[in-house]
């Protein structure tokens, strides 16, 4: 058994914990962002969501990532944050 000093192999940081916003009681009058990560057929799923949200009285804005394999670019994340009240990021396959 040991009495060793080891050097921490990790980045020694913890991701910031952020509280989720409360779920809105209704989407009526809210702006809903739909982020298409551009996986195949994700658009079909988002098209249907858009229909449902519009029927509920929400305004819908559509966004697309350049590729599903990489994180959304900072500019795109910023655009969504200033234009939308809620956002849905859609997978597919």
């Amino acid at each position: 058994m040991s009495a060793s000093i080891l050097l921490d192999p990790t980045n020694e940081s913890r991701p910031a914990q952020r509280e989720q916003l409360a779920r809105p009681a209704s989407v009526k009058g809210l702006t809903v962002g739909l982020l298409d990560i551009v996986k195949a057929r994700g658009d079909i799923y988002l098209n249907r969501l858009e229909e449902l949200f519009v029927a509920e009285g929400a305004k819908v804005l559509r966004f697309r990532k350049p590729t599903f394999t990489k994180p959304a670019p900072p500019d795109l994340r910023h655009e969504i944050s200033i234009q939308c009240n809620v956002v849905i990021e859609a997978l597919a396959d």
Partner: protein
Amino acid sequence: MKPQLPDGLVAIVKRECATCVMVDPLFAHIAASGASLTVYTQDDPTFPASVAALHDADLSVSWHYDIETVPTLLRIENGVEVDRTFGWSKDAWQKFTGIADLGADLPVMRPGCGSLSVDPNLEDELRVRFTSSTLHSRHVELASAEDEFESMFIRGWTDGLPVIPPTPERVLRMLTGTTRNPQEVVAIAPPNLVQLTVEKIAINAVMAGALPEYLPWIITALEAVCNDEFNMHGVLATTMPVGPVIICNGPGTQAIGMNSGVNVFGQGNRANLTIGRAVQLTIRNVGGGKPGEVDRATHGNPGKLSFCFAEDEAGSPFGTLAEERGIAPQQNAVTVFAGEGPRCVVDQAARTPEQLTNSFAACLRATHHPKSVLSFDAILVVSPDHSRVFAEAGWGRERLLSELHARLQIPGAELVRGALDMAEGLPAKFADRTVPKFKARGILLAHAGGGAGLFSSVIGGWANGAMGSTPVTRPVLS
């Protein structure tokens, strides 16, 4: 901190050294001549007998002045070393001291002995004593009753296999493998976008079981994967079974004992296995990329523990992969490819390059799906027994690749959705076209494997190009 030495002559000796004992009386002679002389003794503070000495008990003087041999004589002027001689050479010592008859009755020369500061049994301890301030990582202190190997599993630091405890001694020894500053930021590590320092890589390299001479290869491989082009983030996060495949080129692969021959993708070679493992451990521990978290692979593959090999350059009729990708001959280099596990191509009957190319093309066609086109690259690793067929026919890299691409032009009717009674496929509009299986540079050719066996290997890729991953080749720097 480097100790300041007094101006004049400074001698470093130890009693354990017969040459030091032999020159002991000379120090009184030097001191009597009026020279300013300071003697440091490494072991016995009562030695030498002829003059009083300072005890270099912690070997600080010896370490900081890079004393490799005792006795060593230094000349210090204005606080700076301007000259040194080591061992006993009558001529050198007489000139150094300006005393014409110094040691006149002694032999002409005697070699010195190893300095305690380079004693292999002390070197790790001294490196920690004098250089550990260069390390910034948090110290994790284990309890005496704690099993260090189990504690590293519990902390989530391993890839499922045991790792070597990264003690300061081992990490500092690892860092002797590079000239780079431990705090230099090499890359931004995904998925948590963390600044990746040489120190953190060295810690994970120790854990992987690597040797210091592998460190430049590990650093280069990490630089090669942590960028937008290779897209390690996506390679990690994908549900597909891929990881970084690392192909090493250059004379350094031989110098560090890499395997390019028998069982080249398999177990048994420390350099191959620990270089690849260190890269993956670094992504896990520093980047934060763990299976089940950001790593969403459906199956993964065993190569995600480590998949690294050297190309058999000497036996290759194709030149080297690194040179084909723009690296100068004889330059050590690393190529990274987002790949799955290797699959075998068996052809024990072909005796012409055309026949063998037909087999390669048929097997490459099936990469990921026989109806999948242009989305994935592949590496074809040709074995020595197979490459001989091409060498004897005078086919080089260009000829083989162009013949392969020519055989991989596929009629759209075989590719469209529903064709061959498979739902997978292209939209119907491609039915009348011919579509290549691979992009123009989508087949990478490498040469490796044991000297017996009419087998080659295909390593399928992942989403290629800007939407996924592009292979990256980088020179290995010290």
